[in-house]
């Protein structure tokens, strides 16, 4: 099924062969466990840094 980039994502998608191969390779690991609280805290930090950078860029 082809995807029209001008339309919002409302339909299920197929991926490319290359992407499917990447997923296959990723299954071999390694898998690194992430603490959920730390992940959220890190995302908050990244958001703050990115917003600060955006603020400086618009000055």
């Amino acid at each position, binding site marked *: 099924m082809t995807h029209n980039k001008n339309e919002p994502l409302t339909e299920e*998608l197929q*991926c490319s062969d290359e992407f499917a191969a990447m997923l296959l390779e990723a299954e071999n690991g390694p898998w690194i*466990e992430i603490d959920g609280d730390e992940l959220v805290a890190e995302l908050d930090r990244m958001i703050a840094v*990115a917003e600060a950078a955006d603020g400086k860029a618009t000055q």
Partner: protein
Amino acid sequence: MAKQRNNVPPAPQAPVRKVRIVGTPSFYQTMKNYQSNVAVLKAFREFITAKRNDPLAPFGSKDRAFTGNGLKAYKHSGLTFDISVVYTLSGRDPHVIRLYGLFSHDELGTGNPARLGLQKKAADSFDRQTSFTPLEKIDESNRQVNSPLLKELLTLL
């Protein structure tokens, strides 16, 4: 269970780790690609929060499995118009979310017909995976709690 003190509401239960999250090296790499993109970061944060609260509930209206033979175990959830997070959900109590990364439509290659053989191979490999074995066992006794409020609440238990 903590005894209720006068004029102090009973402390809520500490959050149960019903969801465990693991990431591939590619996930961390893709995170770096979007470290300056506020919209993507915020949407991904919402995704993580939502899945931790209710891993079975779809995230928004764009949380679907891939079509095509053999990749139905892989899900993609739209974060912004162009960027999606690819993940799988397995296990129960705890649920396990495997994060493969953040990808654009171009990177996903959506719209290109995928050869059945390769997707079937991917599916076979996925099916052979054993149950999740964490690389690092979470030691709850030494868990660092950064939230002052949560620290206070945990002392009441």
